[in-house]
């Protein structure tokens, strides 16, 4: 396979053709933050936290899907990148509860994001769905990374229990007519719980134990 050499943060990097910027950076120890990206799933490239600056390109680019090109010059920490990342994280923190997403809190600390900056507007708040014997769904903690929807659909399970409700700021994960999990096609494979990056999906017992101890 052909190899490609490019520059990331002033380091020369050589990787096979077709590698993404995210993976290429990882080979030289540069970790680019990412929320929606999961190595086993189709990257939806929607969180845009992995944003990087590629010289000669108009906007910032999502590192998780952008393939490397020969002689590309990538900057993962420029002022513009940091601003983009910080504002997106500030927006997210104003919308959902990130209390059980320590990795996202770290990203925020790294760019000195102010979680209160956009506070006071519409938030996504839901009661916890405790509708089956295996797991709970606490969508107040859901960051809409799409992982559960994808893992339930073509990416893995082909069960199609999940979809999107509404759109825009009100987007949320939904079932057919919001019916309870046991009434959907859900087979309780647990894959969605496994890929959830926050505390939104959690085993029922774990959740109950946490509640008792708090």
């Amino acid at each position, binding site marked *: 396979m052909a190899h490609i050499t490019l520059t990331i943060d002033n380091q020369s990097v050589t990787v096979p053709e077709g590698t993404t910027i995210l993976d290429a950076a990882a080979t030289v120890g540069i970790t680019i933050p990412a929320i929606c990206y999961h190595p086993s799933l189709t990257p939806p490239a929607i969180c845009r936290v992995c944003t990087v600056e590629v010289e000669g390109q108009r906007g910032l680019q999502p590192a998780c899907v952008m393939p490397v090109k020969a002689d590309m010059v990538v900057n993962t920490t420029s002022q513009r990148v940091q601003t983009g990342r910080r504002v*997106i994280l500030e927006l997210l923190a104003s919308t959902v509860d990130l209390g059980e997403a320590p990795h996202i809190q770290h990203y925020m600390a790294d760019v000195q994001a102010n979680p209160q900056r956009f506070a006071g507007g519409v938030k996504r708040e839901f009661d916890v769905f405790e509708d089956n014997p295996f797991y709970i769904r606490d969508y107040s903690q859901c960051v809409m990374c799409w992982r559960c929807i994808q893992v339930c659909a073509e990416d893995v399970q082909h069960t199609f229990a999940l*979809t999107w409700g*509404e*759109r*825009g700021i009100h987007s949320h994960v939904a*079932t057919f007519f919001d019916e309870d999990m046991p009434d959907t096609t859900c087979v309780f494979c647990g894959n969605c719980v496994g890929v959830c990056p926050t505390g939104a999906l959690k085993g029922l017992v774990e959740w109950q134990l946490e509640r008792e101890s708090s």
Partner: protein
Amino acid sequence: MDSRLEQFAADLRAEEISPAALFWLRTFIKNVRNGVLRSDEWVELGLTEGATVPGLDATDSAARLTLLSDYDLFQAERLKDQHQFTGPDLATLDWNRKYNLSLRVTDNDSALMAWVETLWAEAGVSPQAAALEKLLAADHAIWGHNLPKRSLLPEILHEAQAIYGGWLPRPVLTRIAQALDLPLSDVYGVTEFFTMYYTKPVGRKIIRICEDAPCAMRGSQKVQDMVCWHLGLDPGQTTEDGEFTIEPIRCLGLCDHAPAALVNDTRHFDLAADYIQPLLTNQPHHDQHSNKIGGLVKVAMANINVIDPYRLPEYQAQGGLAALRKALFDMTPEQVIEAVKASKLVGRGGAAFPTGLKWQFTAANPPGPRYIICNADESEVGAFKDRTLMDADPFRVLEGLLIACYAVGAEQGFVYVRGEHRLSYERFVHAVGQLQRAGWLGHNIKGSGFTCRLAVRRGAGAYVCGEETALMEAIEGKRGFPRLRPPYPTTHGLWGQPTVINNVETLAKVPSIIFHGGAWYSTLGTADSAGTKLFAVSGSVRRPGVYEIPFGVTLRQLIYDLAGGILNDRRVQGILTGGAAGTFLTADHLDTPITFEDFKKVGGTIGAGTMMVFDDTVNMREMLTRVGEFFAHESCGKCYPCQIGTQRQAEILHRIQHGHGRPDDIATLLELAQVMTDTSICGLGQAAGWAVTDAIKRWPELLGSMNDER
């Protein structure tokens, strides 16, 4: 007939028992084998099928138990000990267990089956369900040929909703999903995305009064308040008798008749505080067909108010179809592409990409299916030039589309019409029918060897579906989420095949270009902005309407000479060019020639050609809030910066408008706009902060001194 069955039928007709009881009997008779059916199988089969029968609740077990215990029709045998149960005892059994269930009546199977089906047709299924079945079984030529079934979903949802009184009950969606082989969740997700699909009951009359700037400036809020007061509702609510729903709506594209409203599919123009009754009765006081047009040249608009848009012969009498004939019989596809390139025509949908080049890129793909789409989703704030073209002369747009299909080698073209523009949809459908009958569509058109079909599709309330890749998702029957690019539609468009997407106006220019030649068109306008452009002028002008001008005319000529100047002789405060996704010019720019190059110099946007004019009495803070709310309402929610950023932008603008601004709000708005532009997936989020940034730049005082309410 057995007297027990007679009794059952009599009770059913007297509505003593619910049709669900008949449903369970029917399920039994349809599935019984050698006289017996296992009880658990029966229940399971019934629940599965019952979920697809509109108007029936199979999960309510009462009807089943009545059937079992009241008519002495059934006998159950417990499998472990062969114990027999009949009559009321049956109601005491646990029906999730296994019993062998048999009928105690003596009639033979086929006679019983026929008897039950007759009863079912009479009482069990509603006429609506029958209409739904007919819809699902029909041949939907007007929506497309040999396409993946899923692609029919949006149209079937529209039609099913019409059958069911304006909304989609759950069993209807279940049945549609089953017929199209789709997961229930997918179908539901689509209904959730588009505002014009309802999964809960709505009023028989849905009153939608436009809330965006051009209508708001002319008092739409007051009319909405009056209607709300009259009906005792808040926006978004439905009257108790189910007659009226008031639904807040963004720009309806009827800004030349502002303030405007839709009641169901019917347009209402020039609303005033005394225009309540026509809205409630849905009897508009005006002609639905008036087109306010003008300009200095007539290329795309030559036939408007000249021909009857329902009559192809009138179009042909004006020279219509001569260009298509010329292309098919005197030109190769390559020559057609060369002519369009020579014309220097660029896209009129906003991005100004050279049309000939787009066609060439698409034509250059390896052989295989290709598609052409006419983007008739016009939903930008203040935009109505495409609506005027398609309402008044759908044939010209379709002729342009057919020429594009020929040039690129596409055998299937689509028109995707904004859902709110029902009239335009009907005119396109009618025009396609006339072209078909006249032999200008279908197999081997007029013996030319060229085969082409056109399908007309409706949107359902989503501005983002004007974005080309979101539109393709919508045609495929999915939620209108924009795709990641690359790859681009010229190689990977509809169903992954090479696809050209062009704006209505772009295509409407094509017939003249082919007929008169590319060189002729390129000499209109200026050297760097070739040809003519349609502008939709709205807001504080005396004659709002669509004006066709050659590039190079000044803003002053457009606004004063053509659109009649400013109402009440006020002064221009600002002009929002290019729509909500555009930028502001001021009175200082009135002598700027309208060209791509001159606008670039002064920071204006040509975009799709909208000019919203604000006089010096207009509250610009309020207008900016409305722009912000527009984007927040229309964000698809796919990428974080736009999903959340558009909402926060609207919130900040709202508080500034009401005098509650915070010291760092301006800096926050500017930074937010930059980040949305830098990181959003599609043009919606990328442009969502432009107008705001521009207003801050043009009028530093406007949002600057934030603590005085204006």
